[in-house]
């Protein structure tokens, strides 16, 4: 039973061994088995003899018309043009690409409409106006010194007022 199992294990080793392509460890294992197994040893000899017999099949040459027939089929092939082959020249392709990129960039930049521009100007004017309006109070120290309660109020986030206070 043990030798049968070992013989079955020869199935994927014997051909490689006879080929001369087995790794050293595998070669030694096969040689060890062949030395002790007559059946596999005979099989190995007959495989070698078989390979000599298979060499008796002569090679054939393609017929003289082979190349011409192939060329005729190649010529009859439909021409497939890839996407880039439609471009006339590399420099034009580059120019077209640059134009497309620039168009995309210009389109992505946010524009300021006339209404938005007017609103911004109005907002600035309103800030200046309220600063001017409160100026007499701000310049009166007596009034400011009594405004302790104001310190408990949250600081205004208005940048125009913050700028005015910083002066």
């Amino acid at each position: 039973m043990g030798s049968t199992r070992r013989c079955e294990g020869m199935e994927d080793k014997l051909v490689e061994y006879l080929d001369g392509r087995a790794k050293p460890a595998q070669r030694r294992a096969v040689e060890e088995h062949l030395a002790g197994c007559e059946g596999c040893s005979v099989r190995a000899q007959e495989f070698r003899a078989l390979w000599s017999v298979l060499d008796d099949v002569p090679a054939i040459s393609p017929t003289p018309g082979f190349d011409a027939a192939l060329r005729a089929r190649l010529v009859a092939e439909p021409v497939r043009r890839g996407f880039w082959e439609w471009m006339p020249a590399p420099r034009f392709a580059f120019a077209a690409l640059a134009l497309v990129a620039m168009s995309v960039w210009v389109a992505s930049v946010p524009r300021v409409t006339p209404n938005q521009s007017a609103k911004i100007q109005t907002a600035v004017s309103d800030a200046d106006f309220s600063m001017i309006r409160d100026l007499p109070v701000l310049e009166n120290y007596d009034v400011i010194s009594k405004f302790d309660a104001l310190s408990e109020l949250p600081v205004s986030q208005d940048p125009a007022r913050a700028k005015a206070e910083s002066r």
Partner: protein
Amino acid sequence: MLDVKAGDEQSFELLLRKYRTPLVNFLNRMVRDSTAAEDLAQEVFLRVYRARKEYAPSAKFTTWMFRIATNLALNSVRDNRHRQMDISIDQPVDAGDEDQRTIDVPDRTPSIEQQLLTRGRSEIILRAVHALPEKQRAAVLLHKYQELDYDEIARILECSESALKSLLFRAYETLRVELAPLVKPTEALKN
């Protein structure tokens, strides 16, 4: 092949000159029809040419080429087998006797000794190789006649190396028995 991919037509000519003979021989041994083999070989080169732009050198060119060839050969063999198995539905069958519903074909295959007398040695060998199951046949042809590496043949046949070696073992075992008279001609003549 990379030069062919780049559009070098002369490189394609070089590939053609280098591989047409081994390709025709492989296909001839697979399908046992030299005319069909040449037709299939041309088809292989056509497909190589068509796919040249997509070619990526992730595997050897021969692996790629022989995989195309093997697939075409297997398709051809299967198509021919189906044609040979066609039975006319108009063929009369004796409905009265159940035993005669099947069509019995006498085995007129001559013994190998008779074939030795009437056929060439190479024809007998090719016949035995052609009688192998398709994948075993392809494995033997790629191993014995094209002398490709195991990993290459395994990729072509889309199996593991271990499976390939078992395939080859079983194929050679069958051929060893089938072609025994050729291996030991003196013993065959005694019988």
